């Protein structure tokens, strides 16, 4: 800590001694990145841009989105960095994000970026769902390993599957959205209806189903893949299964205030250097040249669902209402 502080101080001091000395400019960045990595990103950025200081405001994805919407008429944020793609699409349609073409855009994988004209947000990384399958419990119960979404509706899995409630969890909504967009509306609802008979319970958090599969509380959890990978590394007897059409979302960056400093933050956030930091935490990042194999993480690139984030954001309230009416009103968990 002390060393880092000294380093920052030294850099600052050197900057101040430079011929063109000016006061450090502060840029307010709203983010939903995990707390522990914020300092790292800030330091890396400020080392390359000594005249700008990042001021983080951090909250969970849901709260951050709500905050940005609430401040619509009087935005305090200058940059949004590390917020879910569907939220970014919503912010764009509300006119909060300014369209901008950052430097080095060509080096990004376009699948993670704003798909609409006059692009306003750009992917940093992507996170995924997976089916967490507990091998030990499955063996005890004689459950075969499922390989497709349809497998999960087989009667043998009745009462052994947990899934996040999409009304409580973005992860849950991400998967419901992936089904809706890839199976087609009607067949997706029919699928969820069939799956529902096998569900032991819907949880209020996105990682919980994997956690419960990891603990053997259920045999199968449809949940956040990175959580499953971590649990597997810790020693949980899990297999991560990724059938075709797995839900995913990008975390992205966008410009709120049309200033030079803010633009430089956006530029840096999609740079190769930044992506090399993302890859330490996320299995898939936007930059084409940055790839790595995360421990125990399934190869997801081929099975990623086609996702229209704008649609995902637009129809959210309707889908959740419909979902709640169909499945939320069942009171008793089936044992």
């Amino acid at each position, binding site marked *: 800590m002390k060393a880092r502080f000294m380093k920052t101080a030294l850099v600052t001091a050197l900057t101040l001694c430079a011929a063109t000395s000016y006061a450090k400019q502060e840029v307010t960045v709203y983010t939903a990145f*995990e*707390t*522990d990595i914020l300092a790292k990103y800030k330091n890396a950025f400020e080392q390359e841009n000594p005249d700008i200081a990042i001021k983080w405001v*951090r*909250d*969970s994805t*849901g*709260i951050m*989105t*709500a*905050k940005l*919407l*609430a*401040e619509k008429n*009087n935005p*305090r944020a200058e940059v949004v960095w590390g917020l879910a793609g569907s939220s970014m699409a919503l912010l764009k349609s509300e006119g909060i994000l300014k369209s901008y073409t950052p430097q080095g855009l060509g080096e990004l994988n376009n699948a993670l970026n704003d798909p609409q004209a006059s692009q306003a947000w750009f992917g940093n990384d992507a996170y995924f769902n997976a089916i967490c399958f507990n091998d*030990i*419990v499955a063996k005890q119960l004689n459950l075969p390993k499922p390989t497709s979404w349809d497998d999960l509706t087989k009667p043998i899995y009745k009462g052994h599957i947990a899934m996040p*409630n*999409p*009304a*409580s*969890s*973005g992860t849950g909504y991400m998967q419901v959205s992936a089904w809706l967009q890839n199976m087609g509306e009607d067949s997706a609802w029919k699928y969820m209806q069939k799956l529902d008979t096998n*569900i*032991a*319970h*819907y*949880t*209020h*958090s996105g*990682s*919980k189903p*994997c*956690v419960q599969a*990891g*603990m*053997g*509380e*259920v045999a199968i959890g449809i949940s956040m893949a990175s*959580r499953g990978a*971590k649990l597997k590394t*810790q*020693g*949980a*007897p899990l297999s991560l299964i990724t059938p075709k059409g797995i839900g995913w979302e990008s975390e992205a960056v966008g410009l709120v205030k049309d200033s030079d400093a803010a633009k430089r933050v956006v530029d840096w956030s999609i740079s190769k250097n930044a992506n090399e930091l993302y890859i330490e935490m996320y299995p898939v990042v936007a930059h084409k040249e940055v790839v790595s194999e995360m421990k125990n993480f399934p190869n997801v690139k081929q099975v990623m669902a086609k996702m229209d984030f704008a649609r995902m954001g637009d129809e*959210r*309230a309707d889908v*959740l*209402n419909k979902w*709640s*009416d169909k499945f*939320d*009103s*069942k*009171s*008793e*968990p*089936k*044992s």
Partner: protein
Amino acid sequence: MSVISMSPPKPSQKPSVLNTLKKLSREQLILLLSLSIVALVLIIFVVAPLWAMLRSSVLDSDGVFVGLANFRHYFESASVWHSLTNTFTLGITVMLVVGSLAFFYAYALTRSCMPYKGLFKVLGMAPILAPSLLPAISLIYLFGTQGVAKEVLLGHSVYGFIGIALGLIFWTFPHALMILSTSLRTSDARLYESARALKMSPFKTFFIVTLPAAKYGLISTLIVIFTLVVCDFGVAKVIGGSYNVLATDIFKQVVGQQNFSMAAVTSLLLLLPALLAFVVDRWVQKKQQNLFDSRSVPYQPSPEPVRDGICFAYCAIISIAVLVVLGMAVYGSLVTFWPWNKALSFNNYNFAEMSTYGWSPFWNSIELASWTALLGTVLIFVGAYSMEKGRDFTPLRRFLQMLSVLPMAVPGMVLGLGYIFFFNDVNNPLNFLYGSMLLLVLNTLIHYYTVGHMTAIAALKQLPAELEASAASIKLPQYKLFWKVTLPVCLPAVFDIGAYLFINALTTTSAVVFLYSTDTIPASVSVLNMDDAGQTGSAAAMAVMIMIAAILAKLTHLLLDKLFEGSTQAWRKR
């Protein structure tokens, strides 16, 4: 000290106000100042947030007035009725079970001569020292799919009604026990003498004498339990499965969908049973006071082997159940990786490895609890004194006394949500408080204000009124009387309030879950987060740490009581 420095901020424009203030004595000014501070705190931190919430329940997401459309929309959804039915089923079940369990436990403690009463009392009260999530986690270890005793549930899943009910029975038991013990202890021995003289069977005596005497205490208990159950969200979130209740619905609407208008509507619904409970409770409190008067003789139980034996067995069974739940949590926190690696280790306590926050939530909680206890005790006691013993400004004092009991009727989640509406508003000059430790402290303080206030008032009422009169006759200023006599004499009550605030600030989840920021995340919230993230062992470990801190606080409280007993409480013993 000059008079002007203590007057309200705009004296120069209103010379008449200044003149009025000038006419006040220094004593009156001090009283006015302390009353104003309490009034200001209560208005900003209770009334305003509730008002902001009420307002947003009739606005749509763009802030346009839509009348009752939100309510109509809300009641149209089929899932709402399930949440409502679930909440009430749960509330009534737990209320009845805890009511009867705790009644007989309290009966055994106060009306029998069984051995080890002290130990049973401690064990019966022990669950209050743990956050409500601890029993939930412990129940998963006990009765979950991999649980050590899952056969007990006969194939039923612990996730859902059974889990929430068991968790809440455990957690609300001490609250019931506390009220019922007090109510059973103040019983008139003359009634029992008459019963014996009339050759009434013990069985009949119980129904004709004991039960009616404890009637109001029992009603009060049932109401308190019902409110606690309806408003708790931690247990339902961890072990509730798909069993939706109103409290988890609010969480779902805020965190899952950022639908604040709907959350406000649900909150108002949650406010209703709590308000009703509150009104009934006030009524009961008023009735109960007349039961025991100066001619009553306190009941002293005499040994009766059969009754004492049954009482002992009963208390032993419940105490063992409490120990099993607490013990399972401690065991779970020591298991390296449940259920695959059951080797015991302290790995889960290595929070720096397990979560991004490390040990900071624990220290945040200690900081939160300390500030809440410190600020809260001063504010509550000085406030209660000014309201109860003040000699002027009667209308203001009456108004404040009414305001002081309001926080009890507001469920923690509703209060927390109200704070979001009020303090997260960009146009609010107090917006800077949002996310700060100070706001957490004030929120917790307010959430538990009423019980502290009642304790203070009860202690102050015990002081003879002549004290104030004689002080006035020798022209001793009231603040000197307060400092020299009232405070020392009421020291036990002050310690009670401090300990109560400290322990509750450690264990509370419901209100703070919406208000913390990354720098101020409290331990109870981190239990919830770690449990979500799959570090169930660490979640249990943090819950155990909270419990240890609470036990230490309780011991300190007892020690302080002993330390000051000789010098301040000798007058009570005649």
